[in-house]
């Protein structure tokens, strides 16, 4: 500049002070929000990385809630199957005793009555509903009990053979139920005395046992013992499936939690403000601003007119 004029001086100083104000305001905003990146334009690459992390964290949360739901369903199945196994053991004990030739008609009849009531108990257990009202052994078909007894006394399965799956991790589905047909459905039974293959489902087996008891048919009762073992083994297998799934859920939950923690750390590193650096910067900027203002006040007053009489 060749000359410093009043207008030039004022303009200059105003510009500089405005710039300092802007920087100061930005620092203040950062401090009050605790974030270094306030808008995408502050740091585009960081902003996009943070958005991606947010998406991942939200997904993680969803998987977490899915896992919780799966867990509650599986727990219901777990306890139900435990009850079923218990009831089955009782039936086995009863049949074992009744197959004994020392039992007579009356005794066998009494056993039949008891087994009938246990059968009804088992049927109702098979129709257990989970906390959200869905039948745990019904599969895709909802809205009616999966095991219903017709007027002919036969218990039939009205559910489906497919079960619901839910997503517990990215691209990872898990079935959260057992179809009633797997648990109580038809199994291959030991062949009969002629070597013919036999099969039957759980409830019809129980009905047969009751009939055999009423008919005093000890042979059938002995055959039934072998059949009951098959059913018992099957239920054990199904129970094991449930257990395995619950283990998997626990592992997945832990994994998800770790992942969530990692995400949080990464996010914080990317977007959180370093307070020490920010406060120091704030101090510097306010000092600079103050100095600028005071010096301007002093300089702007200097004028030759003050010294001319």
């Amino acid at each position, binding site marked *: 500049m060749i*000359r410093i*004029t009043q207008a*030039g001086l004022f303009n200059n100083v105003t510009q500089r002070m405005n710039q300092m104000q802007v920087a100061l305001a930005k620092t203040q905003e950062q401090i009050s929000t605790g974030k270094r990146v306030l*808008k995408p334009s*502050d740091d585009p690459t960081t902003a996009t990385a943070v958005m991606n992390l947010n998406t991942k964290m939200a997904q993680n949360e969803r998987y977490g809630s899915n896992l919780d739901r799966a867990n509650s369903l599986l727990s219901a199945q777990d306890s139900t199957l435990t009850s079923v196994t218990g009831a089955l053991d009782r039936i086995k004990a009863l049949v074992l005793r009744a197959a004994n030739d020392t039992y007579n008609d009356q005794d066998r009849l009494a056993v039949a009555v008891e087994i009938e009531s246990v059968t009804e108990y088992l049927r109702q257990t098979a129709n257990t509903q989970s906390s959200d009202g869905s039948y745990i052994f019904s599969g*895709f078909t909802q809205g009616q009990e999966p095991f219903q007894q017709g007027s002919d006394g036969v218990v039939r399965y009205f559910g489906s053979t497919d079960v619901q799956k839910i*997503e517990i991790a990215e691209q990872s589905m898990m079935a959260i139920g057992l179809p009633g047909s797997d648990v109580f459905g038809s199994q291959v039974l030991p062949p009969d005395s002629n070597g013919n293959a036999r099969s039957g489902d759980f409830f019809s087996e129980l009905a047969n046992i009751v009939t055999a008891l009423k008919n005093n048919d000890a042979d059938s009762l002995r055959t039934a013992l072998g059949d009951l073992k098959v059913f018992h083994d099957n239920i054990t297998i199904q129970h094991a499936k449930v257990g395995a799934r619950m283990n998997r859920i626990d592992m997945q939950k832990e994994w998800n939690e770790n992942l969530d923690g990692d995400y949080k750390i990464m996010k914080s590193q990317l977007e959180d403000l370093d307070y020490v650096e920010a406060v120091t910067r704030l101090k510097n900027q306010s000092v600079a601003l103050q100095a600028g203002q005071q010096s301007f006040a002093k300089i702007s007053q200097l004028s030759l007119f003050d010294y001319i009489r």
Partner: protein
Amino acid sequence: DSEVFDFSGLAQGGSAKLTLNGTDYSQPFHTNLATTLNALAHKISNGTVNVVPQKLSAVSVSGGLLTLTGLTTSPPTATTVLTTAGASGAASVTTVTFAGTTGLSPIDTATLTLASGVTITVAGSEGTYDTAAKLAAAFAAKTAPSGYGMTNASNSANLVITATANGTATPGFANATLAVTTDINATAQLTTRVELTETASSVTGKSSTTSINRPDPRHFLGLSGGINEDLLVFVTGSGGAKISAQWDQSPLIDQREVWRQDITVKFNSDGSQFELIDTQTDTSLAHVNYSAEKGISYNGWSAELSSIPAANDIFYIKGNHDLTGDNRNMLKMAALQNDSTIFGGRGDFGEVYTSTVGKLGTILVQTDIAREAQQTLVDQATEARDSVSGVSLDEEAANLLRFQQAYQASAQVVKIANTLFDSILSIR
């Protein structure tokens, strides 16, 4: 060779049109009938005079009639020379010599009259008779009327006509006269407009005359102003007409009910065609040729077969009434979140959105930098300007002092000068 067209039915809103040799001349009604027809006549005569092949010699208007008079195009003439006069029982021979430079034009018709009621006609459209000789030959080629014979020497414009003896008296003829007429190739069209006026209880029609002789009338109905009726019924003759109408809302079609229609798909014996059957009513709906690419579709849904259907395969397609717990579609919907193919491979929802935001951020940064650079330029320019044209108070103060001193010094000079003059002037 003149034709008359009756346009007397022309009224306000109508128009008259004449088509002459394929050219249309039309004139909408203007002021009155005479004015309109005169205007039309003017158009026609301007357009057709000197236009070959139709040269009209006159276009005239009288009352509601437009008359076109045709001009034959340099018609040929004929002179007759009675070579041998017929006496009772003997033939008479006449030579008709044709003359004319252009012969018979295609729109002309030449009629040779031998005696009362005895004529021979040659039409110009039958052939090319552009010389007198050809015309003579044309006449000779015609079947002569009974009692006459015609001959013509090759390339000669002379037609020798012999009137043979006919019973007791020879027909004889002294002169054969030739008349040439021109057919005016014109059609006319008259357009009228029927005006409807509405009265309190009925609508009456008032039409202009409908008795048009030659022109082909077209009637248009013009409703002037607004008419409040939703439905107009036109009756002919006398009597009354009554009509009533009702409006019912059409029942809404529930698309879900449409989809719930259970369909049976039955393939034919070679698997090339399938039949769509409504399962509930066992009604056959359609027969469709099957192709693996097209699959099976109906009612808005479509199905694909994973392998080739065998002969007489039957598939049952029904709505998912029972499996209310089936969450497979929901799983598919949830899987969309990670589906990268939706946006043409650019990524899934989250990625595309994030990249858009990132792009925006980058653009903002660039814009910010540009703005700052621009601001710096502005500031520097302002500085430079202020530096040149601004006022520095110190400078002005210094200048002020300088000028003040200069002024004081000048004032002092004046004072001295004044003193000097006083001294001089005070010398006695």
